[in-house]
């Protein structure tokens, strides 16, 4: 202990600590500027994402195992109940789907008449949210698919009920999604009933979106369905986003106070769908 101690306890002997810390702090600041202002560092993130991937997989594994065990041990009654529910749901969906080819054909014909670009069907794939907590300051999720699966930045994410969010970062095997409830997220929507266009902002609460730019005389009511308008380019048009829950017209203010509840269950999504939109350049 004697020899190392003499060597060890003299703080002056830690070489050039001050200079090194200055260099590293400067490097951090440079990185932050590059990362925040421009997106120069996407490849760096993608590469480093591969390094942290094993950590995420290990963290996710027990939850996956638990899901698996629970699935294996669900009792017969519950399974039968679920099966009959799913059958009923499928019947309903296929009944609705019967009309889809006809409607699509009609849509294409009308668009042809209008000389608009025809809207091709979107490709959709199911992906899973990993049980890994991401950015504590934002409403983010980590998904188990990445650039390897042709996921790209800005890609739209939905669940069975509506829009969930969009991809903001991709690494090789995982990607980060920002939810529509994030305060920094804004989504171009329109009212399904009359095509009134506006923007839906996240509020930081999972069950509330804000529609801050609607004038007091706007034609909007409680219960109106908001769908993506397709403006802005990130989201294909026509996917349900939220249902208007309150409309507060304030005579002395320029805009009404309108809020809506997201259709997707943002707090319990585990399986989500990614959309490869084929008309993303149609504007």
């Amino acid at each position, binding site marked *: 202990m004697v020899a190392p101690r003499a060597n060890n306890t003299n*703080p002056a002997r*830690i070489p050039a600590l001050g200079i090194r810390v200055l260099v590293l702090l400067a490097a951090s600041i440079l990185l*932050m500027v590059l*990362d925040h202002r421009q997106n120069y560092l996407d490849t760096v993130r993608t590469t480093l994402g591969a390094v942290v991937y094993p950590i995420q997989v290990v963290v996710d594994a027990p939850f996956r195992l638990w899901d698996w065990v629970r699935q294996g041990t669900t009792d017969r009654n519950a399974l039968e109940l679920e099966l009959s529910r799913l059958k009923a749901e499928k019947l309903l969906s296929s009944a609705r789907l019967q009309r889809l080819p006809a409607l699509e054909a009609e849509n294409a014909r009308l668009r042809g008449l209008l000389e608009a670009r025809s809207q091709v069907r979107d490709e959709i794939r199911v992906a899973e949210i990993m049980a890994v*907590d*991401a950015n504590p300051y934002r409403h983010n999720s980590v998904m188990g698919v990445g650039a390897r699966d042709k996921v790209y930045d800005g890609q739209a994410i939905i669940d069975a009920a509506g829009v969930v969010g969009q991809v903001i970062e991709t690494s090789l095997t995982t990607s980060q999604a920002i939810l529509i409830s994030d305060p920094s997220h804004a989504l171009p929507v329109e009212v399904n009933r009359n095509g009134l266009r506006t923007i839906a902002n996240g509020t930081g609460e999972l069950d509330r979106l804000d529609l801050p730019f609607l004038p007091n005389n706007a034609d909007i009511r409680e219960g109106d369905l908001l769908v993506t308008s397709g403006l802005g380019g990130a989201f294909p048009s026509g996917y349900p986003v939220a249902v208007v829950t309150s409309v507060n017209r304030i005579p002395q203010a320029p805009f009404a106070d309108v809020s809506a509840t997201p259709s997707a269950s943002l*707090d319990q999504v585990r399986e989500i769908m990614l959309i490869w939109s084929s008309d993303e350049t149609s504007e």
Partner: protein
Amino acid sequence: MRPVSRYGGTGRLPVIITIIVSLMLQVVPFPDWAEAFRPDWVALTLIYWAMMMPRTWSIGSAWIVGILLDVAQGTILGQHALALCFIVFATVRFHLLMRVFPMQQLTATIFALLALYQFLLFWVNGVAGIDVDAIHYWAPVITGTVLWPVITILLSSVRMRAQLRG
């Protein structure tokens, strides 16, 4: 580096494992209401090793771990690297004092370091225009300080077992 451990060389492996575990704890899912109270595991682990082995685990390692944390959490690249680098610098600078501090005084120091860490993270968030509730500032500082004795005991046992010095 002096060969002081039986792992040959500098005995980095046990420390690396504790750091990986701390990274995992940082991303393990918490229920939404508890999310704000997640202690800064990585910061606490790095403070401990910087205090005990400042020659091997210093600002360089803190910076690299910080970058990995940024990638894992999807925060601004460099945000955690900057904050970790700074508090580890403070720890290395005062590691001799901190080693002989009585428990209350050490706890107060840890509280100050964690507060500084959160302050730096919040400062970056503020500059980048990311709005965060005050609870995300204070809750991890408090839970982290409360957990410090436990973490010291765990990491000390790792250090004793691997006979790490330096």
